């Protein structure tokens, strides 16, 4: 019997997973766009993005546009790889029951 894969704990958190998935579909996203899509609070969103940044899964570019601060987030190659591996692990764990998903 093959070993069951471990799920990456950094990716597994719901909000972090949502953020990585969102960022995997775009080139770059503003903090406010991520907040609108996840309905997260500023504090929670900032904390989860920081964890992803510390893991090397996202990069942030901070600048001022018309004197307002703007934070732009991008997924890194490592982040994309981690998300792909996480999905593969999920599929492996779910096995045959995956087809029954609604």
């Amino acid at each position: 019997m093959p070993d069951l894969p471990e799920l990456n704990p950094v990716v597994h958190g719901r909000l972090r997973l949502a953020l990585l998935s969102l960022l995997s579909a775009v080139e770059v996203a503003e903090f406010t766009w991520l907040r609108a899509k996840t309905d997260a609070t500023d504090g929670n969103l900032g904390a989860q993005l920081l964890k992803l940044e510390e893991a090397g899964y996202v990069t942030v570019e901070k600048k001022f546009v018309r004197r307002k601060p703007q934070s732009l987030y991008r997924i890194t190659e490592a982040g994309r790889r981690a998300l792909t591996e996480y999905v593969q692990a999920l599929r492996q764990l779910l096995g045959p029951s995956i087809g029954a998903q609604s």
Partner: protein
Amino acid sequence: MPDHTEQELKERLSLIESMIAEGRRNTESWGWTFVLWGVALYAAFAWSALKQSPWAWPVTALLALAATILIASAKRGGYRATTLGRAIGSIWIALAITMFALFGGLGVSGRFNDPHVFAAALCAILGLANGASGLILRWKAQVACAAMWWLAAVAACFGTDDQSMIALLAAIFLGQIVFGIYGMIAEARARKRRIPIHA
């Protein structure tokens, strides 16, 4: 899977799919612009018909443009970039420039006299933009909207002046007002379907 329930893992997969779809969505929150410009076109028609003012079209178009920019910046909810989004945005920006250049030039030069030409050109340009956008997005409803504009462009070439204007007014109703409301309803449904996220 000792540490995770099957339900939890399935929810994670659904969340990933839902968020990737959300990131790729390029039609969000733009239904209102169709309605706004449809109303603006009707307002310009009514103004120019009732008052015979040469300012009706340029003033209405500039007011609608200002309203679009103001509402879009208020609604934006943050910025994100995708290649597809840039492609669709480029089509509509090019459409706006084409309209202002062509109809502005014709208006100023005084060669804006044949209602058939005006109606056919307006419908054909809107058909082009909707067609390109619908084909890129593979959005059948928008391709159908484009086909309606193209039909209206052909219809506007024939019949009396009044008949060509009626064809244009009907096309504006279907292609701007009805399609815009359809887009807004589709957006509201997509928002409702979004999976809630709890950290």
